[in-house]
């Protein structure tokens, strides 16, 4: 089997020199400047506009208190009565009183407990009618929500169930992906970062648009 040294030496040889221990730092000849509208409402409006173009649904609320009842209503309208709902076990959601609202509406809640059985969790999430998450950021230019993995969240919550409900605060919205990448670069990378822009789609069958191929076919963003 080829060793790292052999592989890299060969590459360096083709480049006409000996291997370099570290790459020359990349400095673009012109740095990418700040772009787009600033300010919470302009960004929120733009985010909503872009996400609606790609079949996402945006609910604007004025306070945190509105979130939990809204989630229950979305689930009811989606015909998810009585079915389990998965959520991130995360402080961002804990504070919103979601579990009480879900249980009151008859939905068993699936959330990961630290030290629990991951596989059992995934199988429970797979049977859930919906996943509820909190966004880490959003990108207004493209109507994108950004989610990262962290200990108890569970990446499958936003992926396996057919409906995804994401809670977003307008202060979290950036205009361009550049800001999000720069923010990520300033810390340690989580095991996964997910940019999601609208529901899952494909045009593989006679160029006809299908929604909900592998990921959720419906995306609701609750924007505070």
């Amino acid at each position, binding site marked *: *089997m*080829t*060793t*790292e040294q052999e*592989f*890299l*030496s060969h*590459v360096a040889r083709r*480049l006409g020199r000996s*291997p*370099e221990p570290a*790459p*020359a*730092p*990349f400095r*673009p*000849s012109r740095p*990418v400047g700040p772009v*787009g509208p600033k300010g919470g409402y302009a960004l929120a409006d733009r985010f909503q506009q*872009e996400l609606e173009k790609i079949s996402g649904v945006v609910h604007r609320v004025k306070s945190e208190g509105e979130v939990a009842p809204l989630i229950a209503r979305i689930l009811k309208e989606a015909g998810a009565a009585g079915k389990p709902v998965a959520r991130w076990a995360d402080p961002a959601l804990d504070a919103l009183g979601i579990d009480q609202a879900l249980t009151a509406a008859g939905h068993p809640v699936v959330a990961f407990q630290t030290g629990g059985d*991951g596989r059992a*969790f*995934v*199988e429970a999430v*797979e049977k859930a009618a919906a996943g509820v998450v909190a966004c880490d950021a959003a990108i207004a230019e*493209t109507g994108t929500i950004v989610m990262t993995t962290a*200990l*108890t969240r*569970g990446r*499958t919550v936003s*992926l*396996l169930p057919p409906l995804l409900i994401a809670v977003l605060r307008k202060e979290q919205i950036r205009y*361009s*992906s*550049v800001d999000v*990448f*720069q923010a990520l*670069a300033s810390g340690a*990378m*989580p*095991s996964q970062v*997910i*940019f*999601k*822009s609208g529901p*899952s*789609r*494909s*045009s*593989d*069958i*006679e*160029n*006809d648009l*299908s929604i*909900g*191929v*592998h*990921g*959720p076919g419906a995306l609701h963003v609750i924007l505070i």
Partner: protein
Amino acid sequence: MAARAEALERVRKALGDQHLRGAVRYTAENLYMKRKAAMADLDAQAARGDAIGNFEELRARAREIKLHTLAHLDGYLKQAADQIRKNGGVVHWARDAEEANQIVLEICRKRGARKLIKSKSMVSEEIHLNQRLEAEGLEIVESDLGEYIIQLAHETPAHIVIPAIHKTRRQIADLFGAVAGHELPTDTKSLTAFARATLRHKFMTADVGVTGANFVVAETGTICLVTNEGNGRLTTSVPPCQITLVGMEKLVPRLEDLAVMMALLPRSATGQKITTYFNMITGPRRPGEPDGPEELHVIFLDNGRSQILGSQYEEVLTCIRCGACLNSCPVYRQLGGHAYGSTYPGPIGSVLTPLLQGLEEWEELPQLCSLCGACHENCPLGIHLHEYIIQLRGELVARGRENPLMRTALKLVHFAWTRPGVYRFVAGSAHLGTKPFTRKRKDGSEYLDNLPSIAAGWTMSRTMPAPARRPFHQRWAELERQGGAK
């Protein structure tokens, strides 16, 4: 010459398949127009200050990023490898396809893995991974809807981005029906629902998830997957082991370089501002996380890429596999992907395949081009594919790989036409010389038909004007008298 005969047969078959041609034309046109609209939109956004650059500016930035990366590729590969390992991943180095396949087989053997599920990866097709694994009794299922369809049909892709464009919904329903054990309706919703459920089961029971990589960020060792369906996410979230195959040229230096690349890739491929999913994977699951792979293996693949590095064709390694060149190519539009007979079709394939796998074996590919330059015009990296086609033809000529009649004709033209006196003599005799092939129209004007030898290729479907009795240069003296300059 067997390769050439096979190549000709593939082209002939493609041209004769009217259904395929209709599907290819429709798809290419659709994606071409979408890309065009997306770039016009981008330029308008940029003019308003709402985008990090217009198309030309982004292209210049992307070139800078990729060419810099290639110039320091060994350094960036080392950085990426160190980062992947730091985050708990395992790094492998594959010189060629066979080695890559061996590495995959070994990982599966060690884990007792029998069932794999794959998210779209051109590199995996390049190394014929599926065939290799299946020969060893392993199951590997394509999760990309289009790839799944052609896997069931035992075919190769007709297009890089939308592999099954040549399949009708009737055909797809039949393929799915064979799996289901009963007939299925042909509407998109039903077919999608069936695929979702079937593949969901495969995801949940797979031992290993295999992915490619659209980009790998060197500074963090992050694997980036660009999908619309979510199969990239599923492949890297549920199976307990992930194997990612990476063409070694797929690196970019920093996370923020992704902003430029992702501004270009979705727009160039499908006219979308962004794909539904953009995943960034850094290492396997962290201790305590409930899901995600426990093991992550990254296999960096050479398979001929290092030969292109340091050559006049190096720019070709900046390709991000968007397919814009296919969608703009007037020849691809007539043929579809199968006619090329290679993993990568269209303009990029005609250059990359001979460079990766041998020019003489693939000598027909650089001929499938009218040199219109649309590929270069549409390429988000500005790769000079139309120039490389000519250079490859030059290499073939230098090796004597040319139709002898064509060679003779071109040599004669060179001899005669670099000598003005000879040129004038030949031009003056052309009308007489073509008499045996001259026909007269009703109005008395002349044309040529049924030309011999290589020119028969022309007259099989076209007439040709008859050469003038007096070429232009013989008329000049008279024109000059009328008022030309000395």
